[in-house]
């Protein structure tokens, strides 16, 4: 049982130790398929046109690229064996599965290509990535969308997280891995009863106390080595299944899951050594006698003096960093990790003393269950404290992390100001739909199933007369009256009207002639000129559904030369039927029918920095894993505790003691240290969080709702574990347990 428990913990540590390798391997693959934006402008036998055709399908991101080789030596993207012909595509295995499932009905209209092959591992971020490469013979250059390349692969370094996010990652690792360490420590004490019998038998055969202890230590060492092997085997099994898992769009291949050398060596050494230390520590108050093992029943007062030393050392390690990690630029991650770990472990060292000091003062009045629990805690609170210390440490760590997250959130999460009640999406067309077709395209999109309306506007830049400097460019927006009303404040409006909003002194005067810009999409060079009608009226500014205010010249379609419209970029604000769960996908299909390369951006209230989002999501996954580990530790500890008291419980039930009394007593024995632990964890966690914020040079603010939520989750775990343990506890309480007397 010890080997299995240790093995489980070792497996989790090995997975954690594999994270850097996994991220590195994934990063290498995604970098290998990157390409420059404009390497060369002339076609050659080595050039390839590649266009972005990404889409989303019910929250799943699909990476799409359209390929048009311009010569026989055009570079193949990694993982692609041969260029797909026009109308064909090669797809990732996950996308192939999706297309062959029943769910593909609303995706097929967007991916109207015949599947002719698969993308290999080398071309995918992870096993569950949705991706395709489609062939085309009509692809042409489009600014920022279709580029000409001669090779794949990016040497540019990946996006750095920055010192504050690195600090968050380090703390998150410490907080999430400490419960695993506690779990391994707990697993090493599994099967204590049978071990007692073996030790007693050794004493009977003539071994002295010291020999028996050495035997116990050797037994623990063997079990932990066996646990390491079991853990390694479990790890090999788990890594096979990693391809089936994708979290927030991030997936890996089995071959990515390889523990980094240094952590792996550390695990291989630390687990056996700590198993021996834990065993010797647990035997310090135990007399191993020939007729059995006697655990000290007399109370020995816990000493306080050494307990604050542990967190004090942690504090000393963190002290130099209080000047601020951003000011320091870089910092020693190990110093932070050890410092925070010692602060958190300090909670575990202080908790037994606090529980003893408090329960020693508790009265035994009240119900029988309370009486039994208080007396049990007064005699030996250690077992119950050990059971909850893991969760208390995790709660303190989670509060510290949450406090830090709250403090730095403003730097990474921004309110976009987008108003999702006015529009739910913005569609940007680049070239395929120009200003002359905008109204017709908006009408088609607006009448698509699931779409309640679409307002189109065409924008281009115009150069004011006589101006040469960059600030002389102003925006000309052409749209019908309803669309203009969404972006500026206008009174009456009819086709042919022109308005001027914002710009201040730069505002052109009615009657002036401006020259339209023309980019390479529309042939490049200088565009046509246009005289602003004398009837142009000033208009007020208003915040558009994207949360921005627009300025410039605003014209209705009849007021401008169609040649101008041909040079303009078209965007549309789209309202969808939010009551229809498929509306967004139907809207995407309608957009793809107009231009498969059009960009659909769903409006949202907040926007999160990618790095911060990745850390937050990683932490969320880790927190769930940590809670599961903690729950397992608690469950095993409670059951082990009950097994050790099996005969006593059976005797009490034989006396006629109600099982509910004993159940409540068990619950009290966990709840009292738990409540005391949380009372310690909250100030400790917020204190550590404040330290981390100080290190991040941020003002301290505490999210009490989150703190309450974390404490509630911890209490929930205790209740859940109690509920799970009840069937076994009931079985252990069976008075038939007396039969073994």
């Amino acid at each position, binding site marked *: 049982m010890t080997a299995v428990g240790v093995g489980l913990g070792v497996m989790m540590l090995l997975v954690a130790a594999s994270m850097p390798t996994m991220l590195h391997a994934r990063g290498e693959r995604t970098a290998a398929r990157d390409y420059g934006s404009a390497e060369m402008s002339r076609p050659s036998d080595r050039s390839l046109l590649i266009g972005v055709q990404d889409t989303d399908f019910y929250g799943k991101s699909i990476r799409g690229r359209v390929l048009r080789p311009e010569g026989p030596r055009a570079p193949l993207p990694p993982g692609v064996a041969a260029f797909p012909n026009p109308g064909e595509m090669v797809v990732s295995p996950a996308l192939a599965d999706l297309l062959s499932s029943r769910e593909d009905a609303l995706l097929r209209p967007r991916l109207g290509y015949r599947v002719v092959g698969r993308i290999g591992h080398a071309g995918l971020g992870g096993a569950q990535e949705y991706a395709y490469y489609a062939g085309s013979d009509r692809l042409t250059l489009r600014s920022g969308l279709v580029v000409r390349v001669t090779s794949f692969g990016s040497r540019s370094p990946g996006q750095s997280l920055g010192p504050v996010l690195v600090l968050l990652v380090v703390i998150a690792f410490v907080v999430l891995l400490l419960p695993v360490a506690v779990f391994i420590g707990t697993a090493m004490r599994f099967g204590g009863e049978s071990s007692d019998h073996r030790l007693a038998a050794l004493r009977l055969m003539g071994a002295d106390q010291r020999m028996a202890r050495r035997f116990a230590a050797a037994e623990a060492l063997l079990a932990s080595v066996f646990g390491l092997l079991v853990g390694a085997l479990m790890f090999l099994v788990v890594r096979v299944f990693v391809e089936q898992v994708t979290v927030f769009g991030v997936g890996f291949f089995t071959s990515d899951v390889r523990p980094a050398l240094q952590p792996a060596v550390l695990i291989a050494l630390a687990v056996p050594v700590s198993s021996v230390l834990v065993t010797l520590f647990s035997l310090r108050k135990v007399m191993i006698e020939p007729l059995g093992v006697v655990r000290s*029943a007399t109370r020995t007062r816990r000493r306080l003096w050494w307990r604050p030393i542990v967190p004090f050392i942690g504090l000393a390690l963190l002290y130099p960093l209080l000047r601020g990690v951003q000011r320091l630029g870089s910092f020693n991650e190990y110093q932070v990790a050890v410092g925070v770990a010692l602060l958190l472990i300090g909670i575990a060292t202080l908790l037994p003393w606090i529980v003893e000091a408090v329960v020693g003062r508790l009265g035994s009045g009240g119900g029988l269950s309370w*009486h039994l629990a208080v007396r049990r805690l007064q005699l*030996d609170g250690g077992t119950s404290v050990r059971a909850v210390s893991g969760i208390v440490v995790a709660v303190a760590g989670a509060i510290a992390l949450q406090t830090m997250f709250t403090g730095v959130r403003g730097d990474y999460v921004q309110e976009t100001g987008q108003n999702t009640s006015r529009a739910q999406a913005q569609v940007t067309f680049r070239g395929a739909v120009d200003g002359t077709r905008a109204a017709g395209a908006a009408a088609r999109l607006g009448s698509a199933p699931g779409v309640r309306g679409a307002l189109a506007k065409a924008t281009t830049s115009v150069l004011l007369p006589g101006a040469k400097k960059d600030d002389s460019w102003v925006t000309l927006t052409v749209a019908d009256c309803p669309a203009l009303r969404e972006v500026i404040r206008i009174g009456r409006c009819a086709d042919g009207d022109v308005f001027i909003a914002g710009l201040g002194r730069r505002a052109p005067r009615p009657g002036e002639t401006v020259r339209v810009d023309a980019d390479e999409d529309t042939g490049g060079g200088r565009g046509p000129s246009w005289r602003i009608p004398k009837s142009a009226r000033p208009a007020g500014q208003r915040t558009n559904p994207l949360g921005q205010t627009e300025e410039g010249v605003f014209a209705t379609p009849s007021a401008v030369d169609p040649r101008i419209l041909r040079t303009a970029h078209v965007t549309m604000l789209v309202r969808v039927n939010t009551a229809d769960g498929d509306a967004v996908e139907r809207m995407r299909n309608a957009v793809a029918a107009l231009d498969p390369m059009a960009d659909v951006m769903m409006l949202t209230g907040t926007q999160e920095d990618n790095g911060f989002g990745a850390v937050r999501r990683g932490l969320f996954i880790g927190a769930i894993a940590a809670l599961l580990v903690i729950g397992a530790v608690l469950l095993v500890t409670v059951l082990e505790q009950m097994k050790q008291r099996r*005969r006593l419980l059976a005797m009490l039930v034989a006396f*006629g*003691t109600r099982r509910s009394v004993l159940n409540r007593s068990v619950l009290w024995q966990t709840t009292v240290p738990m409540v005391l632990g949380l009372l310690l964890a909250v100030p400790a966690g917020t204190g550590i969080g404040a330290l981390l914020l100080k290190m991040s040079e941020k003002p301290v603010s505490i999210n009490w709702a989150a703190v309450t939520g974390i404490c509630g989750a911890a209490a929930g775990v205790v209740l859940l574990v109690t509920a799970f343990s009840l069937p076994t506890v009931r079985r252990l309480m069976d008075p038939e347990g007396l039969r073994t007397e």
Partner: protein
Amino acid sequence: MSHALFSEAPMTGGRPDAPPLLYGVDLHKAFGPSRALDGASLHIRAGEVVALMGPSGSGKSTLMHCMAGIVRPDSGRIVYRNDDLTTMSDADRSALRRTEFGFIFQFGQLVPELSCLENVALALRLGGARQRAAEAKAAEWLETLEVADVAAKRPGEISGGQGQRVAVARALAADPSVIFADEPTGALDSLNGEKVMDLLTASARRMGTAVLLVTHDARVAAYSDREVVVRDGRTREGEPS
């Protein structure tokens, strides 16, 4: 109630013509392939001390556990004051054990975290007594069993003999009708064993409490009014002590 089993007059202790307080008839109980009881029968009258004797593994503890309602037999009947224990719910049997029966085990099985006084009071509190009243009565019983000096100590801090006397006090404190004692002196030396048996049987007789004693020690069985021998899961009346 009449049964062929009770046609014989009982030995000493308890009125010979009194109906049995507790009886079990044709009891069978198996644990897996092993038959612990194979047609055992037993009765005990109020105030009677009955010793169940037999070699290890003969089924005497199982018989006692069945009679006490701790273990439900596979077949047969066990009747206590007209109530059939074999048809009672677990909750009812628990209530019966709480209010009518007392128990003494080989190693005392005192609750280690409670003081000796609280251990004795526990039996009373289980019956619904308030803590203060329970502890007052428990103190009297510790006095009777001559262990008042260990009242405040925990079981781990007293000797085996003292612990067993505390266990006897606990068994008697709730005024039970029947005490079930499983090898009550098994872990004691002869001097302490005699002391415990003297106090147990004297107190039980004074209160009119029946005692069902499981032992394989003839000296302990000598305190009984009647011996029943258990062998291979069957019972047989032994010679009077």
